């Protein structure tokens, strides 16, 4: 203890304390936010009945008892299973809070329940179905062609490598890294939140697969240049050189101009 007591007024004590505090809170946060993975899904016609019950208990307050919609939520007849799979599967629905846009959170339902809900809403009227596996196989896609499509159709909101961006009045295009191929496909197909719909006449299923291949390629590969700094472009780079670069430089000048004691 004497060792500690002697050094508690050391100029670096504050820095050390801060570091310890930051590491502890960061570590604790990382521990508590570990995600648990869910089971694989199986779909059948009987799911519709279970889905209906889940819907009545969790969604009907806003979307109406038979999905006809209300003042507080849009009608879901004809949105298709795909839309439900996206909104519920990414945790956007059920809505956590009113706001310009539903935010991603930990999904409230497991894969089985999500599939049941999707099956029920899908049964309400014809709409896009959950995409088939063969449309999602990124290894068959052409990332270069997908890149061209992405830059023309997606990059103005999502940024060239899907890092996300701002829209008007608090709306935003989310970061695409870590989003599954299925959810990417469903988003293009159903246009959730403020996103436009890219239907099959606009981007064919093959085009969508190319886009998925591109997004996977640029979000999953490590950057050849080193740490990506969030892929946010010159703003992150400028902040870095001012805080880290100049910070280090000033530390050097102080060191060089200090006199030997």
């Amino acid at each position, binding site marked *: 203890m004497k060792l500690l007591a002697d050094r508690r007024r050391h100029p670096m004590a504050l820095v050390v304390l801060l570091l310890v505090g930051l590491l502890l809170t960061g570590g604790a946060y990382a521990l508590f936010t570990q995600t648990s993975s869910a089971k694989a899904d199986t779909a059948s016609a009987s799911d519709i009945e279970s889905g209906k019950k889940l819907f009545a208990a969790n969604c009907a307050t806003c979307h109406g008892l038979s999905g006809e919609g209300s003042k507080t939520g849009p009608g879901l007849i004809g949105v298709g299973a795909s839309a439900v799979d996206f909104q519920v599967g990414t945790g956007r629905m059920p809505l956590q809070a009113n706001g*310009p846009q539903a935010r991603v959170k930990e999904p409230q339902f497991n894969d089985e329940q999500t599939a049941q809900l999707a099956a029920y809403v899908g049964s309400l009227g014809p709409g896009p179905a959950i995409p088939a596996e063969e449309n999602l196989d990124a290894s068959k896609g052409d*990332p*270069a*062609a*997908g*890149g*061209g499509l992405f*830059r*023309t159709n997606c*990059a*103005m*909101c*999502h*940024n*060239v*490598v899907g*890092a*996300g*961006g*701002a*829209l*008007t*009045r*608090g709306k*935003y*295009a989310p970061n695409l890294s870590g989003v599954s191929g299925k959810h990417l496909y469903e988003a293009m197909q159903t246009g959730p939140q403020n996103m436009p719909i890219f239907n099959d006449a606009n981007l064919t299923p093959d085009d969508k697969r190319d886009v998925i291949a*591109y997004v996977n*390629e*640029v979000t999953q590969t490590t*950057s*050849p*240049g*080193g*740490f*990506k*700094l969030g*892929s*946010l*472009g*010159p*703003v992150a*780079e*400028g902040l*870095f*050189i*001012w805080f*880290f*670069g*100049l910070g*280090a*430089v*000033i530390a*050097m*000048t*102080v060191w*060089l*101009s200090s*006199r030997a004691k």
Partner: protein
Amino acid sequence: MSTTTQPTTTVGKAATFVESRVGASVLVREFGRKIFPAHWSFMLGEVALYSFVIVVLSGTFLTFFFHPAMGELHYEGPWVPLRGVEISEAYNSTLAISFEVRGGLFIRQMHHWGALLFVAALSIHMLRVFFTGAFRRPRELNWVVGVLLVMMGMAAGFTGYSLPDDLLSGNGLRIIDGILKSLPLVGTYISFFLFGGEFPGIDIVSRLYTLHIMIVPALLIALIGVHLVFVVVHKHTQYPGAGNTEKNVVGEPVMPTFAAKGGGFFFLIFGLLSFISALFTINPIWNYGPYDPSPVSAGTQPDWYIGWADGFLRIVPGWLEFYIAGWPISLNINSAVIIMGGVFGAMFIYPFFESWLLKDKREHHILDRPRNNPTRTAIGVAGIVFYCNMWAAASGDIVAVFFQMSLNDMIYIFRALFFLGPILAYFITKRMCLGLQRKDREIALHGRETAQIIRLPHGEFLERHEALPPHKLWKLTAFESPIYTPAEPNAEGKITGLEKFRARLSRFFFEDRVAPVSKHELEASHHEHDSAEGGGHKEIGY
């Protein structure tokens, strides 16, 4: 040169050979004996110089591999997400530098990080010079050279940013094209002249290349040369301190200690930039794809030093564009030119403005502590706030996403701060400086609080104050405080309108003032304390 003794050693003979033909000893004597006072803030200009050297070296390497041409070809290189895409030769060669030239990406990143550090170091060096008053006579012209260096630094950065012909650089050029075209009457002509026809054309990369690797660097090197010669001619400034006067410079000579330190410092900067370049991606052009006038990526920003101009364009209201007899007046765009011109113009004239305002034509070699010139410091901080608000506005979209704000609200906030920020900053800073000066005065007159409370026999509590050692007292008392000078008649006995205006400004700027402690006050306070305590170096104040 008179040679009384002939050299006998080999080194001596060689030195004599050179000296008798070149006369280099004069230079060595001047530079070698130049005195540098030791203070960390005096080394910031060096950082700019060293990072410039690193940028020149790494840039030279890049010229061996870069093709400044805009012919179209299909990408066949190793970067999968672009394979088969139609791109320009410039972009292709930049990708080749990044992925195929050995060490190419490292050098490219060093060139770019070095450029960011160069302009950042220029900026803080300039702020140091401003806030300490180092721009005053005889150094006004060197300040002007410094402002030109900042402008050239920005030009060098922008022309370089635009070379790789990726999406980001093309978007940046499109804004320049828009600004040029917004200029009344001549705009379209200038744009067509620069781009060799309608934007983007096929000439711009090779033209920018000439600017970037020849004209701008040549100007930079010439200006740096002038800047350094001025530094030697004017001698170095120094902070106030015991023994430092207007007629001496206290510090170390360049040879040998300072030169060794400076050389070492170069390698420290080199090391730092190598470290950053090896570990952190900058401008990942492979992500951006080739330039095509139709797509614009979210989060498209210029490099930081152009950010303030971009930010201004983001917050300027659209209704500033209007028509006069069918002719568009695009103030919503070309006001950016007015703002940039205004900022640089203000920087150019500030030394002359201050000297005129204070009627101060004397030479100054002792620097001001920023608090001791509250007005200048307040103007400087107002300028920083003005600049940084525009700068932050350029990242408004990223701020909005990260802090879950509305982008529209961000714009309204930045617009309000555009006007209010500098005004608030001026008054707050000035009050802070005056408060610090009062604190200094208090300490000088009554000593330092020791946190030792003593109780006198009759029950009164007092805190023991300790008198400052003389060298610290010097720092707190030996300074000049700018003072309001009323309008004075000129040689003809008339008070001109300009003089009245100067007097009014002077009153606004300098009426509030904390006078430095005079010798008389200091003696009086010492006397008072001495008689109260009955001598001794520990003194009691209140």
